Structures are given as C-alpha cells and as structure tokens.
C-alpha cells in the first residue's frame, strides 16, 4: 500500500489546546481523504511547546538539541504538512514562526501545506491569509486553497455552525490529500550525490 508522510505541527500552548484539537481534526480528515485514494497516511504530530527550548537553542546557536533534529528531518521528508497556530497579537504565535524559522531553507519547497489557526474571536480569521499563507508561499510550499480557522464559538455552535466547520475541515483535508498523493520526494540528498565540479564551474572563469 502506498504511504504518504504527514507531519502535523501544533503551536497551541495549553493542554488540551484548541489548536491541537483543530490539528487533530485536520489530520483525521487528511487521513480519510488519503484512505479514499488507497493511500495510508503515516502521521507524526508535533507539539511545539515540547520543543520550545530546542527551537530557541537552534535560533541563537544553530545547534539543534533534543528532539528537534528528528522533527526537522521529518518535516524535510514530509509529503504534506498541517500547520496550526493560535492567533497571538493578530498573527501567528512567536513559537510557530520561530519553529519554521529554524526549518532548513528549501525544505518546504513544493511541499503541500494545510494552514489552520485558532482564536478567541472570529474577527481574526484572515490571519490565515495575511500571515500564514504568505509565510509558506515565501518558503515555496504549496499552500492548499482552503485554510481552516476555528474561533472559540465554533466549538460550541449549533448544528449549522458545526456543519460549516466540519465541511471546511473535510474540504481542506481533501485538498491536502490531493496534493500529498502526488507529492514526489525531492531529488537526491546533495550530500549523497553532489553536483560535479565541472558543472559547478560552468559559466565561471577558469
């Protein structure tokens, strides 16, 4: 059976957090949609809170400590990423941004990403469009069209509200599955197969 690797990143801070709640539902929707295509999802869910010190270590010294190196290499090998952050000060949380700041440049190139955010008020829902989407576009990720924002009230809304959120989650999961199914692992590791010297020198004075 074909396997696709999904890494889910949640930047929620409390336990349980609504970001994690949303992240789990997006993950489940993605797994179902991949399953419909006969693909098994291999999921790793990362709570950034547990990596917070390691992320800061990497930020100030570039030395990856603790579990971080393993997480970063899973991110680099993912066929799809689900990234969910709480909204802090009208944007993604600092921890969320810092984590993606220490992801190797180029690691997200052409990697499908599904963005999600949670907040106390629905008024911040556009954070997906003005903060998360541009950041992942900069990283050359393929951000799926549907992002999912869940405000506190969505978790307790009546049937209609719940249906809207559910539909959005399912649609987002389908879109991520669609891209992840076709995602090709990047070319060889440059440390395994270097560009030959003659090619490196092409166009240069010799």
């Amino acid at each position, binding site marked *: 059976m074909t396997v696709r690797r999904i890494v889910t990143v949640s930047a929620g801070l409390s336990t349980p957090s609504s970001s994690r709640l949303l992240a789990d539902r997006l993950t489940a929707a993605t797994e179902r949609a991949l399953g419909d295509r006969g693909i098994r999802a291999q999921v790793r869910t990362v709570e950034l809170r547990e990596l917070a010190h390691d992320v800061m270590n990497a930020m100030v010294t570039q*030395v*990856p400590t603790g579990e971080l190196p393993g997480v970063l290499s899973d991110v680099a090998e993912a066929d799809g990423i689900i990234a969910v952050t709480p909204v802090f000060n009208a944007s993604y949380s600092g921890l969320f941004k810092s984590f993606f700041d220490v992801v190797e440049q180029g690691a997200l190139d052409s990697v499908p990403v599904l963005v999600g955010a949670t907040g106390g008020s629905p008024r911040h829902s556009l954070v997906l469009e003005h903060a998360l989407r541009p950041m992942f576009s900069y990283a050359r990720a393929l951000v799926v069209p549907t992002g999912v924002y869940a405000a506190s009230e969505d978790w307790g809304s009546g049937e209609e509200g719940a249906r809207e959120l559910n539909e959005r989650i399912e649609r987002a999961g389908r879109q991520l599955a669609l891209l992840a199914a076709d995602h090709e692992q990047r070319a060889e590791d440059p440390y395994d197969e*270097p560009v030959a010297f003659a090619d*490196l020198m092409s166009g240069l004075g010799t």
Partner: protein
Amino acid sequence: MQFGIFSVGDVTTDPTTGRTPTEHERIKAMIEIALKAEEVGLDVFATGEHHNPPFVPSSPTTMLGYIAARTDRIVLSTATTLITTNDPVKIAEDYAFLQHIADGRVDLMMGRGNTGPVYPWFGYDIREGIPMALEHYNLLHRLWREDVVNWEGKFRTPLQGFTATPRPLDGVPPFVWHGSIRSPEIAEQAAYYGDGFFHNNIFWPATHTKKLIALYRRRYEHYGHGKADQAIVGLGGQVFMRKNSQDAVREFRPYFDHAPVYGGGPSLEEFTRETPLTVGSPQQVIDRTLTFREMFGDYQRQLFLMDHAGLPLKTVLEQLDLLGEEVVPVLRKEFAANRPAHVPDAPTHASMLAAKRAGDHNEENTEVRE
C-alpha cells in the same frame, strides 16, 4: 597527525571581571598564544580573518609574518582566508611572500565568510558566495602554478600576461584546505583539486559532519587522488581543562553562558553533549578527541579553539600548557596506533617538495629512456 590551535581573534569582555581588552592587547595576546603553541610542542597555529568588530585579525599575513620570525617549527595557517571577498591575486602574492619569509611553514584554509555586510563592503554579493569561492580559487590555483596567466571570469577584472610575484617557494604552492560546515559544493571543490577539507565541527552534531566528510572522501577517490581513506581531513575542537573536571566546569561556565556565539542558547551540559565542546579533565579531552577518529576515520589535522569568549590570556596560556603537556602527547601515541600505513600525513612544504623532486626526477629518467 598535526595538532594545533585556531583563533577567531574576538575582543570579548571577560564576564567574570567585566573588563574588555583593547584591540592592541588582543593582538599582542594572539601573538603570545601563537608563540606559546610552538613552545608547548603544537604543530599548527591558524588565525581567522575578519573585517568587522569585535574581531581584530584583518591582516593575517602581517601577523603570521611576525610570528614566523619568532618561531622555528610551527606551521602558520589561516582559519579561514576569505576566498570570496579577497582578490585572489593578492592572496597569491601575500601568501607566496609569507612562504618565503617562513621558509615554507605556511598553509591556508579557504572559507567564504558568513558576515553578510562584509560582502558589499568589498563590492560583492553574499548570494554569489559559492560561485565566487569556486572562481577565485581556480584563479589562485593557476596563479601559483603558471608563471604567466591569461584569465577572464565573472568576478574579477581580466588578466593578460600576468605573473604573480614572488613565485611560490621552490615552485611549491602552499597546501590548501577548504573549510566548510555545510556546503557540499566546497567538499566537491576540495576533492576535485586533491586539497584538504576541514570541517569546523565545533557547533555541529557528528551526524552532519560525518555526511560532509564522507562526501569529500568519496569524491577525492573519484577524482583519482588516492583512496577515500587517504583524503586529507581536518577537524575543529573546543576544550577547557583543569586537572579536576568539576573545576573546569565551574571556571568555564560564566564564559560559556556569556559567549557571543552560544550565550543564551543551550546549557553547557546540552552543548557538550551535542557538539565536540569538552569541558573537563585532560583525560576527558583525550577520550573525546579519540572518538573523532571512530566517527570520521583517520585524519590529518586537529585544531582546537582555546582563546575566545573573553578568557584571560593567562588562562589561555595555562590551557596550552595542559594541551601540550598532557593531551597532545597521548593523542599522538593513540592516533598513531592502529593507523594504517597507507594513510598519509598532512602535506607540508618539505613533503611536497620531496614529492615534486621525485616527480621531476622520474620525468628526467623517462626523457633519458626515450
């Protein structure tokens, strides 16, 4: 196997006294440290090159020329020479001149430099660092080997009928190491020329260093310079020692906690676990350094970073005594044991001259037979 030290040349406040050395004091301290390195029996002293505060060594050949005059044996090197923002013509001349002054006790380590603004200050663009390093070194390599060079490239004005003077001592260019911590292109470059490859692994986990060195070794063999295990590898190291390991930790911790490079980051304990930094007894340093061979294979040069983070000169000199008296003699013996006979030492002027003479001799014989 060569053992030595490399200095970044940072001017850093001593966090235990709040005192910052002057540039003059730091420069004089670097020289004293280099002289001490020879005195305690080390093989190599290498200086960094920087063009921004808080670093002092902007003029490596001035410093190394002075040290050459006051030493007899130690090899003078760089860590690193900026092959990007320096004019390769000037590198060719400066270091050939130094070679004559030092009677051949000179080699260089090429590096790109990672300080963004230095590039535009010298009229370049950091985004072109790799192609610039490749083109500049290619020209440097020719300038030392061809008496008259005609050259045209992307990053420097063309040369017609140019001869770099003086010519390298005995017609033998200085040996070159290429230093890189993450670029496969530089490992490939070192392998192509059959030059040395130095990984300054002091901030890196072994798994990463291993990949890059393995790549260099494989490509060294590919380009026909010898077997992979004969490639010329150098490694960094970073140590602080006291007879009693608890004393070493207690004394070094404030320097670690405030060091510009890792202060505010991982704890001393995390850092010593994840990187080659060793803070403890001389025996711990010996044990740790010996693991490098297990990880990366037999190698040719081990350089330690000893004088940074505001450590006072007196402390650094004590560290060098420990390194020279208690650590390096044991390492020499241990590294020599089980070292396969076909693994070469790092090339020196004497060994390259002997190889050249043997080569010339063979050519003459061939001509006679023809």
